[in-house]
């Protein structure tokens, strides 16, 4: 097929079409009250390894979800069959599942219509990226590898999503977004480097520059030496910071505290972290992404989570806020618009984390460090202890030894077992906050940080 016919498919679910389908679903429901959501996606991802494209995929999908409420009971059914039969069947299944439960005296009525902060995150240039465009970006990244005598692997992806919801009380919400992403690994003889970027706007990304960064990291970490495990001063680049913090912020959900599964249980209002730690959840931040409403259609409010190291606030879905008001009326809980679609057991979480940065560059952090370790990226992070918040994981793709204020070379990768709470007590310096993208957590706005006494417990063979 000639190249001029390879235009990217475009999402055809606009606000008017979404309203039409949602109205049809509401009309099909025989429940006392009904909430319906529609999620449409067109996405494409070009994957490369060994300096060649080896996987290259695209999909389009639209999913309708119906939540039925019936005499104090609720349940959800989801389908991607959007003909009249499919929509009715989903509505019937949701009602049938709800009927078979015991009533829940705490079940709330659906929310009334809300107003939402305006966010603009749908970019035509991102949506227009074609298979040939993605291949061009890949070619640029491969060229960097070939010029350096390295092997590269990674992805170049773009997507368009639309998310709409309505309920039988008249609430309506609609959000459209695009996303572009690259990730690149450079493999040298005995070292590697990595870089990644993600943005709603393809113009904000420079995959070839990322490839050069990854290449420089691989070169600078060649012939890694082994350092003994122990506590080190560590400079964590933003991707490493976000992958660690991603495990902490689920604990800022109000329900996790009520359930006593959060590390913040009994610690609200305490100076848990260093005085230089400020964290906000802010969907409207210019570097953030995502919809300005939650799984029940409540507006996502800006919530200061940590101020001067003190845990100030949690986030609340409507049901959690109502329960908190009953059980701890002095806590002042109110819905913040961070709930997951109901019914669920997990409640809510802040997903638009912004950690305030400082003005110290990573180079200045290195220069201020007599002996330490610079970490590009972390891998396979898991929670070892839920209350002390000890996480384990490995360094990967660019781990450097710092000696006398300079990068002295590569270092074999470490396993860490580190309490994130203690880590945030030991932050010595912060750099400018950036939109960072990792592999273990959702994207955040975070700074690079310099931390003392970061605990590496073992070392691997490369």
């Amino acid at each position, binding site marked *: 097929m000639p190249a001029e016919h390879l235009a990217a*498919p475009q999402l055809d679910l606009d606000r008017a079409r979404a309203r039409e389908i949602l109205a049809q679903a509401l009309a099909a429901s025989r429940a006392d009250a009904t909430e319906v959501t529609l999620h449409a996606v067109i996405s494409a991802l070009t994957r490369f390894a060994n300096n060649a*494209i080896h996987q290259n995929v*695209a*999909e389009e999908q639209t999913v309708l979800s119906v939540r039925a409420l019936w005499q104090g009971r609720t349940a959800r059914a989801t389908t991607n069959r959007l003909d009249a039969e499919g929509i009715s069947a989903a509505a019937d299944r949701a009602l049938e599942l709800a009927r078979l*439960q015991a009533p829940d005296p705490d079940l709330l009525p659906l929310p009334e219509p809300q107003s939402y902060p305006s966010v603009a995150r749908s970019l035509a240039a991102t949506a227009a990226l074609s298979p040939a465009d993605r291949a061009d970006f890949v070619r640029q990244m491969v060229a960097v590898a070939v010029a350096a005598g390295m092997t590269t*692997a990674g992805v170049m992806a773009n997507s368009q999503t639309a998310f709409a919801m309505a309920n039988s009380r008249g609430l309506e919400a609609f959000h459209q977004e695009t996303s572009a992403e690259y990730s690149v690994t450079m493999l040298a003889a005995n070292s590697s480097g990595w870089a990644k970027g993600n943005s709603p706007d393809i113009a904000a990304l420079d995959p070839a520059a990322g490839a050069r960064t990854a290449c420089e990291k691989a070169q600078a970490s060649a012939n890694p030496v082994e350092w003994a495990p122990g506590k080190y001063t560590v400079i964590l680049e933003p991707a490493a910071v976000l992958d660690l913090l991603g495990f902490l912020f689920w604990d800022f959900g109000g329900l996790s505290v009520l359930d006593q599964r959060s590390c913040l249980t009994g610690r609200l209002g305490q100076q848990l972290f260093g005085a230089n730690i400020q964290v906000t959840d802010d969907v409207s931040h210019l570097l953030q992404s995502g919809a300005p409403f939650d799984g029940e259609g409540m507006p996502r409010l800006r919530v200061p989570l940590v101020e001067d190291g003190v845990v100030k606030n949690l986030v609340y879905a409507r049901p959690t806020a109502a329960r908190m008001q009953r059980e701890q009326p002095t806590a002042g809980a109110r819905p913040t618009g961070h709930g997951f679609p109901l019914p669920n057991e997990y409640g809510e979480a802040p997903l638009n984390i912004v950690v305030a940065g400082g003005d110290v560059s990573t180079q200045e952090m290195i220069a201020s460090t007599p002996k330490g370790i610079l970490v590009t990226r972390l891998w396979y992070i898991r*929670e070892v202890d839920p209350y002390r918040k000890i996480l384990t994981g490995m360094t*990967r793709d660019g781990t450097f030894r710092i000696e006398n204020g300079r990068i002295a070379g590569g270092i074999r990768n470490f396993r860490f077992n580190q309490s994130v709470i203690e880590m945030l007590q030991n932050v010595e310096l912060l750099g400018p906050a950036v939109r960072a993208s990792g592999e273990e957590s959702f994207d955040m706005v975070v700074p690079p940080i310099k931390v003392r006494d970061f605990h590496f*417990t*073992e070392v691997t063979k490369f």
Partner: protein
Amino acid sequence: MPGKDRWGRDWAGWALDTAVQRGASYADVRIISERHRAVSTKNGKAGTVADNETLGLGIRVIVDGAWGFAATDRLARTSIDRAAVHAVAIARASAQVRRQPLRLAPVDAYQAVWHSPCEQDPFAIPVDRNLQVLLAVDQELRSVSGVTLVEAEMDFRRIRQLFVSSIGSEIDQTRVLSGAGYAATSFGESEIQRRSYPNSFGGQFQLRGYELIDSLRLLDNARRVGEEAVALHQAPQCPQLTGTVILDSSQLGLQIHESIGHPIELDRVLGAEANFAGMSFLTLDQLGSLRYGSNLVNVVADATLDHGPGLGTFAFDDEGVPAQRTDIIREGRFVGYISSRETAHAIGQTRSNGCMRAESWNRIPLIRMTNISILPGEAPLGLEDLIADTADGVYMETNRSWSIDDKRYHFQFGCEAGWEIRGGKRVRLLKNPSYSGITTEFWNSMDAICSRDHWTLWGTPNCGKGQPQQTMGTGHGAAPARFRNVKIGGAYAAGS
């Protein structure tokens, strides 16, 4: 629609015809209809009660010696044609950045209809019966003083897949999967402890109907599990030392998954996952020569029903290759990878050993674990016999955390509970047990494994790989086993 003899054949035919007309030298189509039910309870109330269905088509093509794939849930002819055209266009773009043309190992054309064994259709069981079982467990767990959070769940899937390829295969498979489990959490003054049954992170999952739930004896074990969660608060910390570890079969199943199952994926070995899931220490030169484990270590990749109703059991993989059993480790020696039609030639094989699997209609198949299992010991040996044969050590049960480096050398696992062994007896409960090591050193230290009557085919429902990421269910047969000279307690090393 599902149930009709010609279900999906027209859709597949349209896609294949269009792809071939547009220049595809090979194409295959997978049409999947999946029904999923998730039911959970929490602290005496229903949690998630949800029913999901999805139906769609994915077409994979080779054009100019390169892959393209497109998927759609719009099943009108124009939409299917558009998806096929899109797949061809994507393949042409792939060909612009390629090194050599693809070479696929041959596969025969098959016409087959296959249903996994299922005694009780889980979707015929009303949700109120699911909730009744879970709430009875919930009540029993909450009757234990000190248990602060109780979560229980069931999960059922019925997946019908039609695979049709341009070489003439037409394979219609239906798989029914079930799972259930629960966890009791106890919050103390400064720590959170948890015990799960029959396994953590969702419980046990198999390729069975509701009969699996009936076989798990969920209620019978609830009180013990709740009491152990509370007792952990008073238990001493697992010490940091080098010594003997005995693992229960579920933890050994995860150990196999991470330190054998992933490293033997041939695409990973060849670099296909270098940017994301990582690579493998099992370079091609080690096939047939590496001493992976002790003589007692015999591991197979077995997707056949003869191996059991695992999450990795099927009749054909997602490239239309029949299910097979492949020796991976034979008497400690590394002898096999898991492969695909594209990668088989890299190890001198003329055929794929049938391990390509896709999460759903909107994902391409990747090399994935099937059932990667360690074979049980031949001499009769139970867990209590093994403990009685152990002078000192730590017995660990039920995974709590898992992590391994991106080449699969160095791992660390934490378990929910440990028991100190002295003089062949369990003498006391230990909290926060963990162990770590280097993969081959660990497997070479195995000096005992229990016999067939203590072997369980565990299901891991949440294995992640690929970009866009895919979640896959894998099976792992394992029996309790003993390992010597293992680093214990590193996760809680002083100061961490």
